[in-house]
């Protein structure tokens, strides 16, 4: 019983991280039809930046903020410089982001080397919490990650459903040209969405670096899992990303606990089942 709960909590933690990464990916895709395949590299960069800032200033919060801003601005820069001229061609855009991720990953390897880093959480988030069931003591930091993901998810939902800006984004997802025709500056909206989406990857990296290690290859791992999450959940839907992240997180952790050799196959099987039933993903709309 205790083991099942622990694995379940692990699954939720991982799901929380996957959601943070994948929500950025799906937000950008929903608005601009841009598949940012550099998203995994953005995650790793966020982690590294947070690590460096914390290392030199000893401030955890500052590290988080700087990581969020840096990666967000990098995303905007990439979009404005490289992608704007070709944004009508979704395939070419996706390929250009692959090139960006190659260069980013290689340069991060130069800067940080092949060793694994991990970010020390602040004093208040260290240690364990007795969750009161079956004598399980669970790391406080992982519970924080879980709470943060829920908070970000709620904030995103409120932002999308209750604000004027969110309304514009939702309208843009439905019909971009019509929104532009009503006099809204779609360019500015695009830049903001790209900032928020990329910043989410940076935040996820900074937070994830406290629970798991940061090393070359982490970028690919998170890119892969966020792709699976959005394929399962449906591209462009933030709610889909939440459901997809939950499914992928739980399936991968339970498979890791009980069928370790089959863990990656189980995740793949989940994706196949969903695609076989709904090619557009659980919450996606037909293409």
């Amino acid at each position: 019983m205790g083991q099942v709960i622990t694995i379940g909590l692990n699954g939720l933690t991982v799901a929380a991280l996957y959601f943070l990464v994948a929500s950025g990916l799906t937000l950008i895709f929903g608005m601009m039809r841009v598949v940012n395949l550099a998203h995994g590299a953005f995650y790793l960069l966020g982690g590294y930046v947070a690590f460096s800032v914390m290392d030199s200033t000893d401030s955890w919060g500052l590290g988080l903020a700087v990581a969020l801003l840096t990666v967000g601005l990098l995303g905007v820069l990439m979009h404005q410089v490289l992608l704007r001229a070709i944004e009508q061609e979704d395939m070419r855009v996706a390929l250009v982001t692959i090139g960006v991720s190659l260069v980013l990953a290689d340069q991060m390897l130069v800067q940080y080397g092949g060793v694994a880093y991990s970010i020390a959480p602040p004093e208040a988030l260290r240690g364990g919490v007795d969750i009161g069931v079956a004598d399980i003591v669970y790391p406080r930091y992982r519970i924080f990650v879980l709470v943060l993901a829920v908070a970000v998810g709620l904030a995103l939902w409120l932002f999308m459903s209750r604000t004027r800006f969110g309304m514009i984004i939702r309208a843009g997802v439905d019909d971009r040209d019509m929104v532009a025709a009503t006099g809204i500056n779609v360019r500015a909206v695009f830049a903001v969405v790209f900032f928020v989406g990329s910043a989410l990857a940076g935040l996820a990296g900074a937070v994830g670096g406290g629970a798991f290690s940061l090393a070359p290859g982490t970028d690919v791992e998170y890119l892969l899992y966020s792709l699976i999450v959005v394929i399962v959940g449906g591209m462009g839907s933030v709610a889909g990303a939440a459901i997809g992240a939950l499914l992928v997180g739980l399936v991968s952790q339970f498979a890791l606990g009980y069928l370790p050799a089959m863990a990656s196959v189980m995740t793949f099987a989940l994706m196949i089942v969903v695609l076989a039933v709904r090619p557009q993903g659980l919450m996606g709309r037909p293409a």
Partner: protein
Amino acid sequence: MTWARANVRILVAILIVIALVAFPFVVPRPQFWVVSVGIRSLWLGIVALSLIWLSRYTGMLSLGQMTFWAVAGYGVAIMSTQNGVPYSISIPVAIALATVVGALVGLIAVRTQGVYFLMLTLATSQLAFYLVLNAASVTRGYVGIGNIDRPEFLGLSMSDRNVFYFVALALAAAVSALAWYATRTPFGLALQGIRDSPERMRALGYNVYLHRVAAFTFASFIAAVSGALALFYHGRITPGAIDLIRSIDVLIVSVLGGIHSLAGAFIGALGLTTLQNFAQEGYIQVRRITLTGVVFVAVLLFFRGGIVDLPNQLREYRRSASRQWARFRSRKHDGRTDRPSGADVSDSAGGADGRDRQQLPR
């Protein structure tokens, strides 16, 4: 085509064949030029050929071709080193197995289109990577399977680099001819119809889904041939040979060479291999992967048709540059700020045409 032009074409083809055959005997430093550049370009070109063929004739851009490459490579390695199966059986069986895996992946993958297909095939290749890493009891995990003996036939050994080169060259030629022939068959023509208008082909009674699955299977067969060849090239196979970077390498080769031309596969492979070897040996002072990434982005943004289309592209750039120059001069002479509208119209039409011609599959 006039007779003169046809003759020029035949002459060029003969010259290329002579150059390819003479290549190992005339180059200096054969270990570098024949092995590191020549043979590597050939097997890399065959994988890229499978990607380009699929993209060119069905409109599906796949990042998963290394999956089938790996199944064939690991298949031969496992059967021959761990179970003592002779190559005459293990090679065809492994290639057949990889083709079957291709068909199974195809059954799922072709249900999606465009960037969804790209993401799904990318996920497939990465899961293959994690799978061979985790199934250590068969694949020996990180270490991989080494000590692969090169096959011998007709008294020739593929350990000889010239023999290996000509085997690779013959395979590349055979596979290219097969890929080209497939596009001329009724099946290939139906595929192109489906690429251009799936609804119309469906209305005509074609089974669009099965045609796509068959095309995907055929492409995975080509990639599998390369996998078996590359296993003997390296003498070993490790999960590192199919990580994300390698899958992306195949894509870069295709885009660099020209994703709209089957010949682009081998030209791109030669280009990338040469580039990476020079960077590795320090002739170019940039890290290998960074350089690859920068070149890739530059080709995507500015040289849409790759190396194959380079003459056309340059001509187009020259034309638009001289147009800009003429406009600049006329503006100076007239002292007017507004541009003549006629030039504008023809200009934008030309630009749109150029873009349409070089569209990636959607």
